[in-house]
Structure formats: C-alpha cells, structure tokens
C-alpha cells in the first residue's frame, strides 16, 4: 500500500475518533435533569453537588466545556474518577492488560480454529467434514460467549479440575500458569468468531476453487499443498481479513461479559462498575479507549489487506 493510502486511512480513523469524542462528550449532557445532582446521588449535600459541578466544569458554556475536555484528551488527560480521585487514564491502563490479552488470544483461537476448519470444509465440499463444520458454525454463531464460558467452566474446571475456574495471573508469574488462566476465557470468547470465520473461509475457498486461475495452476502441474498454499489460500484470505476486522468490535464487547464469568478484573468489570456508579468520566474514557482500539485494529486490517491484495497495494 502506498504511503498516501496509509495516510488517508489514518486520517479517516482520526476523524472517526474525533466524532466519537463528540458523542462521548454529549453523553453526559444528555443525562436527564441536573447532571451534577444525578451524579452526586439523592442524599448529597448542596456543597457536594456544587463540588461535582465545578469538577466537571458544568458551570461553563458547553463549547468551552468541550474544547477544554478535548484539549485534555489530546494530552492524555481523561479527567479523574469521581470516586477514587485517581486519573481515568491510569485506571484504564492498569485494568487493560487482562482484557487486551484475552481479546488477542481470542483472535488467535478464532483464526486458528475458524480458518483451518473453513479451509478443510471448503476443500472437501459435500463431505461429512464439510457438513459438520457448517453445522457447528451455525451453532457457534447462535451461542452467547458468556454461556459458552459457563459450560466450559463446568466441564474443564468444576467437573474435571484441569483448569482454574476464575481469576487471572500475569504472564510474569510463569507462562504455563498464565496460559492455564487464559485458555478458557479466550476460547469462550473466540469460538463465536471462529464460527463466523469458518463460514466465510469455507465460502471464499469454495469460490476460489471455481476460478479459472486455479485450473491454470492445475494445468501447470500444481497440486496438493503447493496449489492450496500459493493459489487458493492467498486469494481466499482477502475477504476473510475483512471479516476479521468486523469481528474485532464483537470481541471487545463480548470480553466484558466473559470477564464477568471468570471473575477477571479488567476493563469489563471497570466498565460495569462505572455504569452502576454513574462514574461518567470513567465511562467516557472507556468508550474512547475502545474506539481507539477498534480504529487501530481496522487500520491493521487495512494494512494486511493491502499486503495480501496486490491490486490495492499498487493502486
């Protein structure tokens, strides 16, 4: 992909982020009634309410509020939590690692299982393997990740004490230990995406197989692994990468609930608690952070797309 194209995509991503920042800002303005009173709660004193009002800058005109808030964001200042008085940015960065790691591992699970199953199904169309993959994929798409998480816990942690049922340890505590905590959540989270990917990959492989260039490759004597690797996979990967990008958002949402099942204190529990406590600066920070991750993933997907598809690279 040309440098101009990268810059255009980057610009598009930044524009989206800017629009998200406006929506996030307006979120607090949309709260019915006096925001400061709502946040402070019913039993708050007048002094507390006015403290919150000043803290959030609610006494100033709306444009001024937004511009000072936006300038803060640009400097990495997302404000402070209403309850702990710690900075939102620090709290989010502290809570992020398990969430980000489980999401990334879920992507790995999804790609490894989904793409492999899809390729095999696409290459053996009509076989029992193909039919089982299709049936499992249909089921997987209909299955909520948090229910799958509970079933996995029942089977692999409660009925058989193979893996821990809850919690999370940092990778610095040892790779095996870390992996034993990460396997179940990331599998639960990733399987639905794996199902979606398997479906798409199967369709793409089936489509590529009918293309004349595959016949040409056969006419040159290519077959087996050579044919699949050089002629089928790369062409089938082009649409699959796009689907993976679309699934990123689903994973970032699903991880909230999966974290709750496994009692992992990451961004998910931070978000849930912030909503329950009406900790608005924290929610705003969380939404913005999520948007940044989605935009970043889509940018990576765009780059990967360009890398795989020469028509985009040289266009």
């Amino acid at each position, binding site marked *: 992909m040309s440098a101009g194209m990268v810059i255009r995509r980057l610009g598009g991503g930044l524009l*989206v982020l800017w*629009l*998200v920042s406006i*929506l*996030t800002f307006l*979120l*607090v303005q*949309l*709260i019915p009634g006096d925001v400061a009173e709502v946040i402070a709660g019913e039993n708050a004193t007048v002094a507390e309410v006015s403290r919150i009002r000043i803290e959030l800058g609610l006494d100033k005109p709306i444009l001024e509020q937004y511009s000072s808030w936006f300038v803060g964001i640009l400097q990495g200042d997302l404000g402070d939590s209403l309850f702990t008085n710690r900075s939102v940015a620090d709290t989010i960065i502290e809570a992020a690692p398990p969430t980000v790691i489980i999401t990334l591992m879920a992507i790995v699970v999804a790609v490894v299982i989904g793409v492999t199953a899809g390729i095999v199904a696409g290459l053996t169309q009509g076989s029992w393997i193909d039919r089982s993959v299709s049936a499992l994929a*249909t*089921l997987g*798409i*209909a*299955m*909520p990740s*948090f*229910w799958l998480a*509970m*079933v996995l*816990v*029942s089977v692999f942690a*409660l*009925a058989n004490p193979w893996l821990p049922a809850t919690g999370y340890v940092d990778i610095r505590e040892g790779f095996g230990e870390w992996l034993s905590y990460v396997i179940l959540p990331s599998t639960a989270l990733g399987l639905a995406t794996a199902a979606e990917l398997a*479906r*798409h990959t*199967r*369709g*793409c492989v089936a*489509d590529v197989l009918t293309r004349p260039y595959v016949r040409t490759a056969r006419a040159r004597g290519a077959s087996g692994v050579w044919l699949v690797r050089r002629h089928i996979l790369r062409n089938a990967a082009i649409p699959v990468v796009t689907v993976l990008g679309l699934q*990123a*958002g*689903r*994973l*970032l*949402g*699903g991880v*909230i*609930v999966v974290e*709750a*099942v496994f009692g992992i204190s990451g961004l*998910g529990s931070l*978000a*849930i608690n*912030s*909503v*329950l406590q*009406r900790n*608005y600066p924290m*929610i705003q920070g*969380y*939404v913005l952070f*999520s*948007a940044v991750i*989605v*935009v970043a993933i889509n940018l990576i997907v765009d780059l990967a797309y360009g890398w795989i598809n020469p028509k985009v690279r040289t266009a």
Partner: protein
Amino acid sequence: MTTATQSARPRHVIRTLLRQPASATAVGFIAILVFFAIAGPFVYPHDPEVQDLGNRFAEVSWTHLLGTDEFGRDVASRIIQASRIAVTAPLISVGVALLIGLPLGLWAGLRRGAVDAIAGRLADTILSLPALVAALAIIAVLGPGLVNAMLSIGIIFAPGLFRVVRGATLAVAEETFVDSAVAIGSSTRRTLWVHILPNIAAPLLVQVTILMGVALLVEASLSFIGLGVQPPDASWGSMLKAAYTNQFHSPFAVVPSGVAMVLTVLAFNTIGDSIRDAVGLRRRT
C-alpha cells in the same frame, strides 16, 4: 431487481419457509415460544414465583421437569415465564431501531442532501464502537433496567438498519419506475408506500429477523452483568446469572436457560437465512 421483486412476494416467502425442514422447524419453534409468552400463566406446571426452600436445587424429575433453582422454584415454569421477555425484548429493541432507522434511511435514500450526510456520519461513528460498549454508554445515561436496556439495544441497531434501508432505497429510487411515478404526479408519500417500501421489504425483513436473535443475545448479556432485567423478573439472561452464582452447587443449572436461548437465536438466524435465500439476496458468506 425485477426478479427479486417478484420473488419477494409474501406468499412465495412463506411457502419457501415452510417447505424446507430447517426453516419450518425454526418457524414452529418461534410459534411455540410466542404461544408460551402469551399463554404462560395457563401452561406453567408450577407457579414460577413460589419458593420452596426445602427443595432447593432439586434434580430433574417428573414433578420438576428441569429441576428447581436456588429458591426451590420450578425451572421449567421459570423458562416459560421468561419466554415473555425473550419475545418482547427483541421486538421492542428492533421496533425502536426501525422507528429510528426506517424513516431516516428512506429520507436519506430518496432525498440525499444534509440528512443523508449527517445521519450517515453519525451511523458510521456509532458503528465504529463495539455494540456492547455503546450499549453500556447509553445505559450509563438512562440507568439500568430492562426497558432502558431494550432502548439502548434499539439505538445501537438503528445505524445498521439505517444503512440497509438507505442502500435499498437508493437502488430502488434509481430504477426508472420511480421516476415515472414521480413524473405522473405521484406524491412523495405515495411513492414511498407504493413503490419503495415493497421493494426494500426483502432486505429489511432479513435484517430484522437476524437482529431479533442478536437483540436476545445482547439483552441476555446485559441482564447477566446486572444491567438489564432486575430480580425478581425472570429472563433467560438473569436466570443464567443466578445459575452461574450457584454453579458449584448445581452445574446443570446453566443448561436449561442457555439451551433455550441458543435454540431461539438459532431459530431466528435460520429463518433469516431462509428468507434471504427465498428472495434471492446474497448469502453472507
């Protein structure tokens, strides 16, 4: 377009749905679900609200077909009771989404201009956020609870429906018959009802059916993390939360409500896919 228009006739769609075993089963399942939702109180084996603390976590038996929960309530009856939310929650969410997305999409597709530009940008922005994250943000404003959860899901679905409606309207509006209808003096409203709506019905119907299943999943997720249905109301999601809390005592408890949910989502997806095939739209491969 003409072939799609002809095959989109309701009779054709219904016939195709009922002819294939998979989609016929799905339609039957949803019919039973709707029956349970309406006739619930008349078909409960037990009163779903009555607690029997001496009989907590009872095993599956003839008296309690799916056992009892942590308060000794009959699980089968509670599943039936919760089917009411399983039917109404997606209906309300998708209804809200339609209320926002349909008129805006029609307007944007027909008139383009500022409405199209602004609504389009807004839709892109909301769609750039993960659905559940956006739902959390909206619930933060509205407050937790079933109605607010359904509203927030509706708001999140609106941009997707807006895009579908706008795209289909744009395609239909470029067809010559709309031009000629306008040329013979048809009013905008008449153009909409007679020419455009019947032609965007097919893609809209597919999208709506699929969204019903997604709405159920998101509702369950929100209820599970405590932001949707509040106790003592029963939804499959809140039942799952209770079952989760007691997973050590009764591992089986996660099965009934979970399976009910998976089957329902599966049914909606199957119907959606069948309609898509029946009206000759491209399958999402």
